[in-house]
């Protein structure tokens, strides 16, 4: 059976989730929907990212970020979540670590919240439904 090694072309392109030194970028996924969390997780791990933790609401997200600090390179943050919404969580994380790289995940129709987040320091945003190419594009752009 042929393995990846047999198809060098696949390996030619370095995985986007890896630093030049080969270590993966560590991502915290905050989303109240298991489905979205999984989806993002799959997209990211397939590119070599390391999803170090997930959180189901804003509050948990903030706590995990602080707990892991400085072990998280990027956070994907859902906007509408129970307990604490994504914009508040974003504010709290930025207040804790102003270098934090956060990408907002938003459904259509939440333009104003996306704008608010961007002004508060979010690096970028992803629109649901998720599109693999765009998700990677925006997350990579945010890591630059």
């Amino acid at each position: 059976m042929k393995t990846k090694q047999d198809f060098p072309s696949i390996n030619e392109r370095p995985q986007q989730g890896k630093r030049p030194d080969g270590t993966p970028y560590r991502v915290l996924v905050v989303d109240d929907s298991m489905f979205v969390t999984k989806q993002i997780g799959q997209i990211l791990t397939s590119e070599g990212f390391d999803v170090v933790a997930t959180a189901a609401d804003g509050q948990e997200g903030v706590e995990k970020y602080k707990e892991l600090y400085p072990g998280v390179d990027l956070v994907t943050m859902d906007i509408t979540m129970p307990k604490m919404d994504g914009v508040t969580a974003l504010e709290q994380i930025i207040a804790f670590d102003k270098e934090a790289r956060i990408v907002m995940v938003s459904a259509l129709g939440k333009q104003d919240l996306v704008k608010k987040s961007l002004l508060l320091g979010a690096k970028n945003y992803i629109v649901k439904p998720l599109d693999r190419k765009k998700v990677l594009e925006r997350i990579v752009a945010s890591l630059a």
Partner: protein
Amino acid sequence: MSDYLDPANDELLKDFYVEADMQVETLESNILVLENDPGNADAIDEIFRAAHTLKGGAATVQMNELAEFTHLVEDALDEIRSGRVSIQEGTIDTLLVAIDVIKAMLAERQNGGVYTEETTQVTAALRSILEGQAPAAPTSAAPAAPTPSTSTASESTELTEYEFLELKDAAGPGATIYSVTVRFREDNPMNSVGGIQLFAALKQFSDVLKTVPGFDELYEDRFHPQVVYYIATKENPEEHRGKLMISDVTDSIEIAVLDGVGSPAPVAAASPEPARAGTAPAASTAAPTPTPTPAAASQAAPAPAAEAEEGSGADEATERVRTEHRRNAQAGSILRVDSRRIDNLLNLVSETVINKASFNQISNAFTDNLATFQSVETQYRDLLKDLFDSLPDYLEEIRGGASPKEVRKRINERFGDLPGLFDGFHGDLKATVAKFRNTAQNLGRIAGELQEGVMRIRMVPISQIFSRFPRLVRDLSRSLNKKIELEIEGEETELDKSVIEDLLDPLIHCVRNSIDHGIEDPATRRENGKPDAGTVSLRASNEGNMILIEVTDDGRGIDVDAVRKKAIDRGVIHPNKQLSDVEAFNLIFDPGFSTAKEITNVSGRGVGLDVVKRQIEKLNGTVTVWSEKGAGTRFTIKIPLTLAIIQGLLVRVGKEMYAIPITSVIDSHRIKPSEIKMIDNYEVFNVRDDVVSLIRLSRLFRIQTNENPDYHYVVIVGTSERKMGLIVDSLIGEEDVVIKPLRDHFTNSPGIAGANITGDGKVSLIIDVSQLLELGLRREKEERAKREMTIGS
């Protein structure tokens, strides 16, 4: 948003309001010029320029509703300017209503709110002016409608010099200002987010000073195909281009250095800009359209506006002028001063410095004098002591047989220079004193000129309020169906700013009175052999330390008999009282007096001319009226040039000193106590054939004094028709009195207008004559009421 051009910047806003008011005034006055002379190209240009500047300013301070509305007005004016639309009466009305909306928007903003009322009628009327250009081809009207694409396209290219300077001020030192023009992709599902996303990205390395469209608009959920960001940064934005190009979001980015108006120079390595061509203002292609057509189209539409105008009524017109002015007064801490006046002051200040140096020299000279004096004095004393000490010896010698002549000679030899010892000192001192006197005189002159110079800084031409009358008169004459011509003279006459602010209301009142009660309707005028159009004139002139303002009309004049009858009906005067015509005229200033037969919405609502009188008196001025039946009426207002310094008559009561404003002093008398007569419990005194009631200031202010001196001094104060005598202990003299306002808990003391510090450092209180008169009048009325009660019972 601290790095954003702060719309709450007070200084900036203040400047904006001052400028906006000027523009609005220019707009209004020139529109009125157009009404009479529709072909006046200068006026049209002037109007257009004012509207344009106003729009630019409004956009800078992010008053979007104002910017948008003014933009529409500007478009309409452009049509007129280019001659594509001709001016009709409806056009003028529409423009005037539009200006009222602009004023209201400004007022609303100044009160911290945003104008929210419906403007659809006006907007529709304005659009109809625009459409007047080609009603047959509705498509050509499209560019006029402020669709986002055209408005951004046209605005992105024009940054006024003012706006540029604002940006420059906002940018930190050393930073370069760039314009970053970004085209966004419309196919992005969240295409309205891009504007903010770029804003956030630009913020990473620069200060975003301004965006077109404005920040608030970017925040709205609307797609803007192109946004121009004006940023200030020390870095080269080209290096950040990668971060700014967001796939899916941005289409193209154009970065240019901004170094002046309208000349953005591309930054090295700027990408060519594919977008421009597409956004080139569509308006230019749509412009050359057939000329005006039918008056019908442009006439029909302004109609609602005209109705609205009538509905609002002329009464509101005056209200509007007032509130607007009050607003000015609040924000009006900015004063435009002719630079020559400042130069003059500087000159005087340098003279003061020289003067100070002279005083230093004099002080040194005095010190020298003193030293000389001391040494001479010591010499003198020593000699004198010697003299006394040696006197017994000389006596002894005389007794011993020496001839007195011989002794005297010896004494003279020894003490001969004693009397002349001080001669040199005397000369020195005299010279120093002369120099001192000279320099002090100089100081007096400089202080006087400084006082005048500083005062002149506060002086503004009366045209500032006169300029409001053309519109007022126009609106009033329309609502009353009278034809009126307004003449204005002496606009350049200058007055203290604070006085001018309080003068507007009384003047409006007088003019309103003239138009409403004075000028007859055209038919009546014709019957009386007068021209259809009545004339109201406003005239200002200087008269010594006073300003004279006359409001004259050629209307029906005051009906003396009607006034007299009414005064008797109202109980203002006794039926038997003989009144001269002048006295009768001036009765119209009595509270609650209105001779209008029916109440109109212009005047005659009970708020009478007494208000005018009170306000003028508050300014230490006087108002009189003169009239000739059938020929017209003239209101004469006299007010001092300034309120800060007045001429005062200083009087003494007990140990206290009071200043009575000389403008209200009629004359003064020295009377014997026996000349004071009593009528119904109060003291009166006969001046020629007049009886004047007296007030003892000592009693009024509860000051201990000798109540029965040999003589009393009586100062008669008041106006020609209401007088009162103030009993004081003595008169001190006239002096320039600098009024210092009294603070808080003193301000309620009736009869006191303020305090003054006299030359010797004492404080004297300044008497408020009008309040005293009122006090006296009230007392009189109470007494009369009491008396009538007693008689009745």
